[in-house]
C-alpha cells in the first residue's frame, strides 16, 4: 500500500447508506461510528482494498453498513474466511467484526489459530457478555452466577478472559477498548491498522436489551476514572480522578497504592511495557477483580513475521530454487516412458 498524506475520504464515504438495524441505544452504533470516523485518517487506506468479514450475531451485521467489500458468513467462521481472504490476496486490508459467542464459543478454535498464525487481520470483538441475536442466553464471557434465559438458576460456568486467552495463544497485538470512549477506541483502531500481524481489540459493548448496564460499574462517566486504568507503553500505571492511584507489583501480586499516603511515590508504580507478555498477562488478570481497576489500552504489541509474508517468501524462494514452475514438467513427472 502506498503512503498517502492527504485525506481522501470522509466518514460518510464508509457508510453503505442502508438502514442500520441494531436496537436503539446499542453499543454497536458507537463502534460503527468510531470505525467510520477513524478510517479516513488511516495511513495508506484505499477504500476498495478494505474487506470486512463477519460471522453470525448482532455485531456480524456490521459489513452491511460499511461501504467496502464485505462478506457476512456463517457462525464462528469469520476468522477462517478472513484468513483465506488475506492469504489469497495480502494486498487487502482485512477486518473482522465478531461477538463474544461468535469469536470465543462457536468460533473459538478459528480465533486461537488466527492469533498464533499472525495473519494481518484486524479483529474487532464486540463483547457484551450475552447472546443478543438469540435473545438472551449466557455467553462464554458471562459472569459466574449470572441469571439468563438459559441459566435461570445462575450460570455455573466461569467466563473466558479474552485478553488472557489472546496472550496465551501468542497474539502479537492485543488491546481492549470501551464502546463509550470514542477517542480511545479510535486511537486503538489506528494502532491496529498500523500493526503488521493479527490485531485483536476487545471492545466492552453494552447490550441495551438483554444485558443493559453490564459494564456500567466501569464505564459510566462518574465511575470510569476510578475504576478503569488506561495502560500505556513505558508509562507508569496510574489511575483515579486525581491521578493519585497506581499499581505496584509485590512479587507477582498487583496492588493498588495511594500516591498521596506519604508512603508511596510514582517510582513505586509499575511502568507498563507492551513488549512484555509476562506483564501483559498479570495486568489482563485485573479484569473482574473487584480490588483492581479494569485495564484498557494496548496490552501487547510485538512483531513476528506474518503467515502471508512467510508464504509469499516461500513461493519466491521455491521459484528461485526450482525456477518458475513449468506445468508440463509437473504433468510428466520424474518417471515416465515413451511409446512410439
Amino acid at each position, binding site marked *: 500500500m502506498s503512503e498517502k498524506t492527504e485525506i481522501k475520504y470522509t466518514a460518510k464515504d464508509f457508510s453503505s447508506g442502508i438502514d442500520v438495524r441494531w436496537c436503539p441505544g446499542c453499543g454497536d452504533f458507537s463502534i460503527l461510528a468510531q470505525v467510520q470516523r477513524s478510517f479516513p485518517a488511516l495511513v495508506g487506506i484505499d477504500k476498495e482494498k478494505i474487506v470486512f468479514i463477519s460471522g453470525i450475531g448482532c455485531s456480524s451485521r456490521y459489513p452491511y453498513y460499511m461501504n467496502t467489500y464485505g*462478506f457476512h458468513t456463517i457462525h464462528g467462521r469469520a476468522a477462517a474466511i478472513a484468513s483465506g*481472504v488475506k492469504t489469497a490476496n495480502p494486498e487487502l486490508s482485512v477486518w473482522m467484526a465478531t461477538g463474544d459467542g461468535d469469536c470465543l464459543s462457536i468460533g473459538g478454535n478459528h480465533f486461537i489459530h488466527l492469533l498464533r498464525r499472525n495473519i494481518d487481520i484486524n479483529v474487532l470483538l464486540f463483547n457484551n457478555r450475552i447472546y443478543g441475536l438469540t435473545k438472551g442466553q449466557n455467553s462464554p464471557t458471562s459472569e459466574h452466577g449470572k441469571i439468563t434465559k438459559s441459566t435461570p438458576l445462575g450460570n455455573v460456568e466461569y467466563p473466558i478472559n479474552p485478553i488472557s486467552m489472546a496472550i496465551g495463544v501468542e497474539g502479537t497485538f492485543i488491546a481492549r477498548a470501551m464502546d463509550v470512549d470514542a477517542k480511545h477506541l479510535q486511537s486503538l483502531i489506528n494502532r491496529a491498522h498500523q500493526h503488521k500481524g493479527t490485531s485483536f481489540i476487545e471492545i466492552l459493548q453494552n447490550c441495551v436489551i438483554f444485558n443493559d448496564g453490564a459494564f456500567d460499574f466501569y464505564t459510566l462517566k462518574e465511575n470510569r476514572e476510578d475504576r478503569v486504568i488506561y495502560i500505556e507503553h513505558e508509562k507508569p500505571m496510574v489511575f483515579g480522578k486525581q491521578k493519585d492511584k497506581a499499581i505496584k507489583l509485590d512479587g507477582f501480586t498487583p496492588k493498588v497504592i495511594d500516591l498521596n499516603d506519604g508512603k508511596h511515590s510514582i517510582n513505586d508504580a509499575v511502568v507498563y511495557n507492551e513488549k512484555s507478555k509476562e506483564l501483559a498477562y498479570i495486568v489482563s488478570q485485573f479484569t473482574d477483580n473487584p480490588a483492581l481497576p479494569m485495564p484498557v489500552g494496548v496490552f501487547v504489541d510485538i512483531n513476528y513475521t506474518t503467515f502471508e509474508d512467510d508464504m509469499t517468501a516461500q513461493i519466491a524462494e521455491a521459484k528461485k530454487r526450482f525456477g518458475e514452475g513449468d506445468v*508440463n514438467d509437473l504433468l510428466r513427472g520424474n518417471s515416465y516412458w515413451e511409446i512410439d
Partner: protein
Amino acid sequence: MNDEKTPVEPNHTQPDLVPVEDVTVRFAGDSGDGMQLTGAQFSDTVASFGNDLETFPDYPAEIRAPAGSLYGVSGYTIHFSSHDIYTPGDQVDVLVAMNPAALKVNLKDLKKNGAIIVNSDSFDRKNLELAKFESNPLEDGSLSAYNVYPIPITKATLETLKEMNLPLKTAQKCKNFYALGVVYWLYNKSPEYTLGWIEEKFKKKPELIEANTKVLKAGYYFGETTEIFNKRYEVKPAELPKGIYRNLNGNEAVALGLVSAAKRAGLNLFLGSYPITPASEILHYLSGMRQFGVKTFQAEDEIAGITTAIGASFAGNLGATSTSGPGMALKTEAIGLAVIAELPLVIVNVQRGGPSTGLPTKTEQADLFQAMFGRNGECPAPVLAAASPADCFNMTVEAARIAIKYMTPVILLTDGYIGNGSEPWKVIKIEDLPEIPVNFRTDPKDFHPYMRDEKLVRPWVKPGTPGLEHRIGGLEKQHIYGNISYDPENHQLMISQREQKVKNIANDIPELEVIGAKDAELLVLGWGSTFGAIAAAVEAQVEKGRKVCYAHLRYLNPMPKNTGEVVKKYKKVLIPEVNMGQLAKLIKMDYMVNPIQFDKVKGVPFKRSEIEAKIEEILKGN
C-alpha cells in the same frame, strides 16, 4: 499364469522365459514391513517397461499395528499386462507373504496353482500363533494346491549386510527389497529403476544406499543362481497409443488437475485442507508446489479447510478443499454458504467406509447421498465422480471449469480405491486443455452483485476493484441488488434461480455413452470407481455373446441429458455399487425405473468376476 510344480532339475542354466498376457502380484506383510513402498516400486518399474497396470494398495488404519497380527497386514496388489486392463485383478498369481499373518489373510485371493513366496524365517511359533495357525502351513501340506517357495529372507538379508555392521533393526528393515529383487528376477524386470530411486531417496545416508542396493541385488541374484524357480515369466509391453506415459494415482491426479485448471484459468490456486485418510496426499502433493504459486493452508479443522478456501475464492483465487466422508460432514454448512454466496469452489471427497469414523483406510462409495442432499435448505451443488485413478485428473479439471463458469461449489467424489490406486496415464500438454475463461467484473456501471447473465450466473468481482464495493453473505439476498431480503416472492425466485442454474449445466456436459452389445437386454449402470470392474465384466460377457451393455456416470448432478432415455431403453438395469444402492435410488426417484441393486460394502472394490456372475444370473432368468 499357470504353474505346475515340477521337480528341480540339477542344472545351472537359466530357466525359460514363459510369455504371459497378464499377471497379478501381491506383496503382503506387517504394516511396518514396507509393503506399500515395495508395491509402489514394483508398479513404477513395470510401468516403465510399458505394461498396462492397475494397482490396489490396502493397508490397516494403524500405522504400526502389533507385529505379526492378522489385522496389521498391509498389502499392495499390482495387475500388469500386455493389453489394456481395467482392474487390479480378481485373483492373485503370486503372493509374497512376509509373515504367517500375511499368508493367512491373503490366501483366499490366490489362484489355484498360484505361487507363494514366503519369508520362511518368520514362520516361527510366535508368529504362527499370532496368525492363528494351528500347525505350520509350510510343513503340514495345507498349501499343496499352490507352488510354495519358502525363502529365508531375513537371514539372507542379514547375511548380505553382515560386513556393514549396521544396527540389527536397520539391517532387518531392508528385507522387503530382498523380496522385491526376487520378484524382479521372476518377471524379468531389471531393478534399475529402484536402484535409482534408492540413490535419490537416501542421498544423505550413503550407508542406506549401500545396504538397500546390496539387498535388492542379492534378492535378484538369488533368483538367478538358485534353482528354486523353474520358470520365469515375461509380460510384453502393452500396445498403448503413442505418447509419453507415467504412472499416476488418483490423489496425485487431483493435485495435478487443480494446478492445471488454475493455470488454464489464469488464477492462483488455494487449497484449504485438514489431514484425513485417505485424502491427505492431495494436501501433501500441493504443498510441494510453491514454485507454481500454489498456496496450501493446513487448517485447524475441516471447517476451516473449506472456509479458508471460500475466503480465497471471494478474494479471486481458485479455492479448493480436500477431505473424506467425516470431514465432508463437517463442511456441510460452509458448502451451503458457497451455494448462496455463489462463489466457485472445488470440494474433493476421497470417500471411505462410513458411517462416522467407519473404515478410514478402506474404500466405499459411501457419500453420494451426502453430496447430493447433505445440506440444510434447498441447496443444489453439482456433483462429479471420477471413474479411475487417471480419470481423477480429467474430472478435477471439469470440477474447476464448472465451478468457475457457473459460480458454484462443485463436489468431486473419488474414493480410497482410485485415490491410492494407480494406472498409466498418457501425459497431456497443458496447452491441450481448453482454456477456462474467467471474467472478473471491473466495470462499475450498472453493477449489482446478484445480477445474472443468461445462464443465471452472477458476476465475480475481486475485492480491490475500485467502485464495485459490495457485500455478500449467507442471508437470503435480494434478486439483482444483493441487499438482505426476507421477501417471500424474492426467496422463491432466488431458490428457483439457484436450482435452474445448476440444472442448466446438463447442457454443458457430454451425454451418457452406452458400450456393449447392440441388442442388449441388460444395461449395467455405474458411477465412480466401479468403472473398471463393470467395463471388464461387460466386455467379457459380450465376448461370450451375452446381451449386455454398460454406461458410466461421471456427472451425478445434473446427470447427462439422455440419462432417462438410456435407463428406460433396456429391459433390465443393473446398478453395482459399493454402498447400499444410492445411485439406484436416485435413478428410481428421477426416472421411475426399477433397477436391480447389486450392493457390496466390504471395504474393497468389486471384482470383475462378481459382476460377471451377477450378469449371468440375471440373463439366465430371461
